[in-house]
């Protein structure tokens, strides 16, 4: 019987030959991941009450990324609990202030096709780009998972998104996702998205993880992309082990049944900007161009990887941000910071007027540095602009690609990045 990729993963994890959408199954979890906000501070008392430890400390990854670095006694205490827990429960895969969990996982070879990854964060979907069922869970679910190594789930239907055409200059995977939030909607709960098509095939893994990351904004359990040579090369370059056979094994059958098929022509897409207070409030950048901003933010798992910083630098190099505007850059990981320092990206950003912040979830999660006051307006390379998310409830957040955020910082108003990139090519 023809099966989708998620059905194949769940059949394997449930120890069954086949599963069908709607089946309630118990699946074995291959990797459990959590951060300082959702992990040890919520698990420890529960595990103690149950009188148990971790089912397999080597399959647990803990990352401190939400309250880093500590800004007050409360956040310091949360980090202290995280560190003590990792030590006492024997968690060797503890990444303390090294970057955002979703970026840490593939940076360190933890993800491979066919896995079931349970993460204590909604953007765990990010790892779906590697052909893994990677889904977010709340703290009690995660406690059960780290105690037992399994969880229940309903086998989800799959929505297939075919993306054809080549992205134009200044248009990115982020723009695809903002358009999809609008056109496909954010209500695909208890379903998975599966991306494919020539545009996805042409993307590197950083671009692909943007699609999977923001599957969360579509409401989906995860955003799957079947592995190919690009996937395997990335895993191996980051210390992971994966068999060549993964490419044939972990893909949907050609005649698999989808709940829905959606086709998008990326070549027809302009840069997108989502207006407050929903990623689905997106439109071509021209619709919002000219709106005044106080702050431009390049950050988060979805928007501050090396490729994202390079996009911002491509616009900003040799230019200065507008007077009165703050440009904040929080690289997604220490490795991103180091690479951006080596290749001149960081210099271009700082000389343009950017302030570089610690790696972590920071202002995107409403924590740490870079929050907004009442009435302030920010354009951000992050994935959510819900009311009250980045500071005061009466602040306004627009979402865009790193190109668009950088161009807006230069103008002090929301701006189309393409003229800045075109100028650059004329000079070069």
């Amino acid at each position, binding site marked *: 019987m023809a099966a989708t990729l998620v059905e194949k993963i769940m059949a394997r994890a449930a120890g069954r030959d086949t599963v069908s959408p709607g089946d*309630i199954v118990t699946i074995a979890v291959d990797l459990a991941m959590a951060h300082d*906000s*959702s992990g040890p501070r*919520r698990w420890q008392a*529960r*595990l*103690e*009450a*149950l*009188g*148990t*430890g*971790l*089912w397999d400390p080597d399959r647990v990854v803990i990352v401190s990324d939400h*309250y880093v670095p500590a800004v*007050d006694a*409360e*956040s310091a205490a*949360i980090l202290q609990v995280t560190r003590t827990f990792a*030590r*006492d*429960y*024997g968690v*060797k895969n503890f990444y303390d202030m090294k970057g955002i969990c979703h970026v840490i996982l593939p940076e360190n070879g933890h993800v491979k096709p066919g896995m079931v990854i349970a*993460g*204590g*964060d*909604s953007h*765990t979907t990010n790892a779906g780009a590697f052909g893994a069922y990677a889904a*977010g*869970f*709340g*703290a*009690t*679910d995660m*406690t*059960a998972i780290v*105690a*037992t190594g399994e969880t*229940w789930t309903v086998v989800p239907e799959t929505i297939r998104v075919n993306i054809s055409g080549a992205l134009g200059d200044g248009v990115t995977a982020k723009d695809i996702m903002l358009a999809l939030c609008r056109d496909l909607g*954010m*209500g695909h*709960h*208890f379903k998975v998205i599966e991306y494919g098509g020539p545009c996805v095939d042409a993307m590197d893994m950083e671009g692909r993880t943007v699609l999977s990351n923001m599957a969360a904004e579509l*409401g989906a*359990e995860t955003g799957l992309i079947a592995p190919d040579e690009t996937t395997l090369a990335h895993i191996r370059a980051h210390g992971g082990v994966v068999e060549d056979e993964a490419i044939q094994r972990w893909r949907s059958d050609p005649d698999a049944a989808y709940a829905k098929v959606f086709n998008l022509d990326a070549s027809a897409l302009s840069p997108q900007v989502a207006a407050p207070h*929903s990623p689905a409030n997106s439109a071509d950048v021209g619709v919002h161009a000219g709106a005044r901003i106080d702050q431009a933010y390049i950050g988060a798992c979805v928007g501050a990887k090396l490729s994202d910083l390079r996009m911002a630098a491509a616009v900003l190099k040799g230019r200065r941000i507008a007077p009165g505007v703050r440009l904040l850059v929080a690289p997604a990981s220490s490795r991103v910071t180091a690479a951006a320092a080596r290749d001149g990206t960081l210099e271009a950003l700082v000389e343009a007027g950017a302030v570089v912040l610690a790696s972590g979830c920071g202002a995107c*999660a*409403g*924590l740490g540095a870079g*929050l907004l006051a009442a009435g302030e307006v920010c354009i951000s390379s992050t994935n*959510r602009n*819900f*009311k*009250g*998310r*980045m*500071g*005061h*409830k009466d602040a306004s957040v627009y979402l865009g690609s790193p190109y668009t955020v950088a161009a807006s910082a230069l103008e002090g108003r929301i701006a189309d990045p393409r003229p800045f990139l075109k100028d650059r090519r004329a000079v070069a």
Partner: protein
Amino acid sequence: MSAREGRAWVFGDGIDTDLLAPGYAMKKSPAELAKHTLEAVDPHFAAHIKPGDMLVAGADLGIGSSREQAAISLKTLGVSAVIAKSFARIFYRNCMNIGLPAIQFDPAGRIHPGDQLRLDLAAGRLSNLATGKTWPVPALPPHLMTMIERGGLMASLTARFAKPGAAAHPPRPQGASHD
């Protein structure tokens, strides 16, 4: 299990986790955080809700973050059930896991703010006592019904780990290697 009864607090579509548990209050204690529940859309909610009252919403209730505090704050305030046209998956699981029933039901035109509601989970019935109407609600899968009856996932886990012969993993391996 006895039926739940309380007033309806009605909201629209897209009530997200940042509205339910705002980031700026996430470091506070559960009781303090709960005071900020939904304040950006209804400043009176947390102060005026009474034990037993129910949260009623449109589509996509609980979209956004995995933060379980979004569900815990509602329970802390005494909310006895959440009723919505549709739920975000993680929020739905979080509610069930803490023993707060999440019922998929389109309230449009059927439930108004302040209506007295009665939810009988075992019978699969929701009644609006203000209008006298009663509707069937979808039955929960048996494993969820059992979990809710026990009071949530922790109670189920406690039962599982308390079974004779249930091999618990060594709690807190003291002296484990620190490198």
